[in-house]
């Protein structure tokens, strides 16, 4: 089942690459992505949300010499992110219907490979398999930004690739090092299985930096922190977002950034609990700085896409705090906020893409009074804005509130600083909305030679699911959180001695 989820997109990509007809490529891609989404719904239906156990496990030996196996599994931590990925891809394809006009086949093939790699990173339970998918996801993204991007696309895509790659190189070394340690717990053989990694008890000495656990912790954490991105490592993100084509931005913000935060939860915290706890303050502090810094810098951006990119830095700061306070509120909230950010920022990028298609400009100062010209577009944009600034009954509120609650129970000071993001978030988003949509008609809005048509039917179809999700997730968060609660609560309770439980028949299967 999970293999099908991962490899179906690869098959799709191959079919795409050799598809003979140029003009049906988009329809085909849309169909494929919907098939994938339906498949993931089927997976969701089979998913048992009452247990923290690893489900739908698939394990086959891959590189026996190193105990590397093709080991897939899903639990509450990953299930919703998988759904997010499969949910966003059809929307992205539909959303980029007109904006991608060269090498259409190549684009969709890359998109499917990217989807497979992202799903693979979420589902892998083997360190090397995970690493393979993790790195693989860079390549299609690299092409998507580099080929279909804006004018400084090459600079941006290289920056993106090298930043991320530098971090993950350290992680590779850390994985190798950890594999060396596994014989202690497996009874003599090397293993790259995450479950065996969890059993490791890596020595930790508080306060001393050069101890294995601390070093490994930072090797992993830096790799993921670059991806998230955490404050001083974030500068690739605005460039990548601004230069990426709309679908690229959506995937990047919607799913790829989540890979970083997801891995904090899947890898860093359970594997190095002492170090994570001991150095949590660093990441919480960086999260707080990220929130405030991202918001302040977003406020003064002249480019609307860059503004949203910096808002991502701010939002990811929340998620980071939620993860590192390591209590049920924070972690549940962070996991939920990952979904929220995926949906609302994805929607924002789609909306910006739609207006960019019409005017070919993203400069805020050239807009103004758009609300009078494109009312439906404005409604959608304002709804998404509200989600982004976490107005209650939209999805953003639930996540942000829980994260703040978690932060408060960790330390009121953290919450006090983090809560400024609530104000600043509203400030930069609404100021942007005001400048773009309200006021007298701006330079671009006035011009007659390209009439600004309101949303087309296709664009409405793109946006409606996202808007439905915004409210559904805001009003009935339990419908979504129930899937992850068991796993997250289990993780929070047992983080010092974590191991994903296996249900009896799965344990048997693993024996074999």
């Amino acid at each position, binding site marked *: 089942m999970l293999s099908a989820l991962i490899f179906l997109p690869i098959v799709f990509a191959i079919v795409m690459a050799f598809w003979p007809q140029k003009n049906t490529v988009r329809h085909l891609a849309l169909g494929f992505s919907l098939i994938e989404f339906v498949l993931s719904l089927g997976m969701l239906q089979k998913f048992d949300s009452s247990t923290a156990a690893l489900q739908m496990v698939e394990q086959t030996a891959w590189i026996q010499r190193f105990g590397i196996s093709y080991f897939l599994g899903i639990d509450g931590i990953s299930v919703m992110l998988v759904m997010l990925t499969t949910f966003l891809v059809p929307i992205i394809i539909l959303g980029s219907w007109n904006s991608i006009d060269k090498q259409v086949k190549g684009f969709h093939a890359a998109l499917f490979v990217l989807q497979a790699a992202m799903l693979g990173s979420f589902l892998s339970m083997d360190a090397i398999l995970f690493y393979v998918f993790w790195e693989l996801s860079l390549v299609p993204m690299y092409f998507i930004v580099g080929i279909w991007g804006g004018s400084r696309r090459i600079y941006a895509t290289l920056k993106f690739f090298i930043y991320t790659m530098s971090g993950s190189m350290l992680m590779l070394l850390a994985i190798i090092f950890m594999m060396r340690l596994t014989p202690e717990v497996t009874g003599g053989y090397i293993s790259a299985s995450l479950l065996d990694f969890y059993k490791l008890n890596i020595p930790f000495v508080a306060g001393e930096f050069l101890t294995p656990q601390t070093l490994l912790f930072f090797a992993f954490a830096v790799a993921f922190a670059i991806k998230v991105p955490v404050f001083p490592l974030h500068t690739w993100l605005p460039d990548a977002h601004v230069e990426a084509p709309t679908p690229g931005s959506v995937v990047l913000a919607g799913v790829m950034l989540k890979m970083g935060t997801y891995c904090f939860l899947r890898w860093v915290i359970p594997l190095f609990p002492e170090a994570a706890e001991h150095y949590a303050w660093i990441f919480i502090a960086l999260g707080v700085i990220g929130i405030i810094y991202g918001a302040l810098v977003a406020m003064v951006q002249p480019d609307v896409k860059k503004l949203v990119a910096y808002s991502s830095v701010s939002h990811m700061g929340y998620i980071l705090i939620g993860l590192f306070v390591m209590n049920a509120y924070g972690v549940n909230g962070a996991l939920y906020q990952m979904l929220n950010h995926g949906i609302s920022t994805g929607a924002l990028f789609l909306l910006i893409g739609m207006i960019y298609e019409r005017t070919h400009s993203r400069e805020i100062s050239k807009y103004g009074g758009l609300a009078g010209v494109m009312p439906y577009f404005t409604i959608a944009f304002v709804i998404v804005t509200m989600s982004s600034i976490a107005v209650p009954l939209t999805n953003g509120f639930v996540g942000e509130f829980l994260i703040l609650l978690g932060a*408060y129970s960790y330390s009121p000071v953290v919450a006090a600083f983090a*809560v400024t993001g609530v*104000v600043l978030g509203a400030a930069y988003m609404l100021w942007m909305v005001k400048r773009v*949509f309200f006021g007298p008609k701006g330079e671009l809005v006035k011009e007659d030679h390209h009439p600004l048509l309101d949303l087309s039917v296709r664009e409405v179809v793109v946006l409606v699911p996202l808007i439905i999700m915004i409210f559904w997730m805001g009003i009935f968060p339990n419908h979504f959180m129930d899937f992850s609660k068991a796993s997250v609560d289990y993780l929070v309770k047992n983080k010092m001695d974590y191991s994903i439980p296996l249900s009896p028949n799965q344990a048997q299967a693993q024996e074999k």
Partner: protein
Amino acid sequence: MNQQALIAILLLSPLIGFFLNGVRFRSTNYVLAGSIATIAVLISFICSVLLFLNLVDLPPEARRITANFFEWIAVDKFKINAGFAVDQISSIMILIITGVGALIHLFSIGYMHHDKGVTKYFAYLNLFIFNMLILVLGDSLLTMFVGWEGVGLCSYLLIGFWFNDSAKAAAGMKAFITNRIGDAAFIIGMFILFMTFGTLNMHELNMLAPTIAESSWLGAVTLGTMMLFIGATGKSAQIPLYVWLPDAMAGPTPVSALIHAATMVTAGIYMIVRLNGLFIVAPNTMMVIAIVGAATAVMAATIGLTQFDIKKVLAYSTVSQLGYMFLAVGVGAFGAGMFHLMTHAFFKALMFLGSGSVIHAMHEEQDIRKMGGLRKYLPITHATFFLGWLAIIGMPPFAGFFSKDEILWKAFSSSQGHILLWAAGVLGAVLTAFYMTRLMALTFWGKSRVDKSVHPHESPWLMTVPLIVLAILSVVGGWVGIPHVISEQIGHIPNFWEHWLEPVIRKLPTVVEGAHHDETMLEWSLMGISVGLAAISALTAYIMYTKKEGASDKVAKAFGPVYQLVNKKYLVDEAYSAGIINPLIEGSKNLWYYVDVNVIDKATYKVTDLVRGGGSFVKSLQTGNMQQYAMYIGIGVVVALSFVLMR
């Protein structure tokens, strides 16, 4: 009918109205839009009345109807239901909201009929009612917060309703962001309370509140309530966050009446009354509330003296009146605060609608210097406005008198009270009387200064009917809470208000000890002082602005710089932009420029430059001369050998 279903209908009816109008927001059919919206609110009003009657049927201590529709957020110990409660306090609120709301909807049909966005307008208005109902019915702080932010959103949308005007859009934004500052504090307050009591349910919080007052400034209850109060200062426009409300007058006038006078802005007071059990054990918070309330009441009133925009005057008046309410709850007079909330809702809504009628008549002219003598053109408006005026300046037996008097008495007599608070209240009353009279005089009385091109005319019945209803309410609204001292004299009319609220309101002891008679005397005399001073003040204003031309200018000149300062609203807005907003924006630009571009990226480039420099160095070694290469080999051999053999 099932109580829960009633609550559901109450809530959903405006929401459905919102959707019905929302999906066809471009329509200009104002009759249809207005009818849908008004009927939706009317249905809610009927539900409110039914619920109120149901509540009356219950025994006083069991007067509480709750409805839990579903579990909203449940993580670990943090469980919040989509739960709503109708009790003595909220039942009054929903009556006010739906009742006044319905009237204002009706008024709006007339007022907005020429506007292209009329359907959108009604959709927003319904959405506001929905959120406001959630705010008042929510039985936990978090559900209240949903409405709290929701009304903020609607306020944002409605203030910026005419978004083509940049200033109006900016006013909406300002309102939202200012409120957000309060909301941030509100969130922290919720956390403190949740961590302390393990629940956010307001009923439970009141139950769990300690019985002994907390004296420390850093106690959980004190801090928590203080944070909630900061939230309230945002929503209810108190110092230091009041600045958004005057700007909010950019919205259509009925909106000002509904949101920025009658309902939304009173949410802060409502919240405090709802949590009176908690606030009362935090005397420090109470003191701060009282002081802030009194200060706001006086300060806003002084600004009101100098304004020439009819809506701005009313706006500052609202801020001032809200200050009164905070003064009331700050001295522990929760019942009085609620009472003033209600009467204020009546007369301030009336005055706003009246001003709307004037503006409508004057073709969007809002400057009172260009009005005058409108009495003869707008008789109904004038009559209703006149009644409202009497109510607000606290002339007995109009609504404002009873509530304001109650507050002043409590400010004097409560254990939390102080003579200075009382004095501030009286000063506020005097100033209110003055500027309100000035407003009346400049608008309706005296000589007409109306521009020749404008031909004022009385508004249609759709607009005058709500005015009349509200005027009646402004007159009789206060009679439900006639103080004992008066009721004893005029035939023992029971104080319904106090009686009704008694089970849910905790009271502070009165400190003015002594014989019952002395107390009564005192109360009478205080009442006399305030009413008398207000009357004198009103008379002065009347003379100054109708009889003696130019007197006002002389006074203004006499005050000179002080007048300028007050006229410029104490330069608070300017101070905020110079002290906070501009530095923030400039600082952010620098942050972006220095940290992102010059530090982080530069550092990255430095690393790349270093690597590239290394590359260039290696490149420079590669001269192409093979003997040099052989030399490298030789050096390599020598170094390696000496290392291998020497050590």
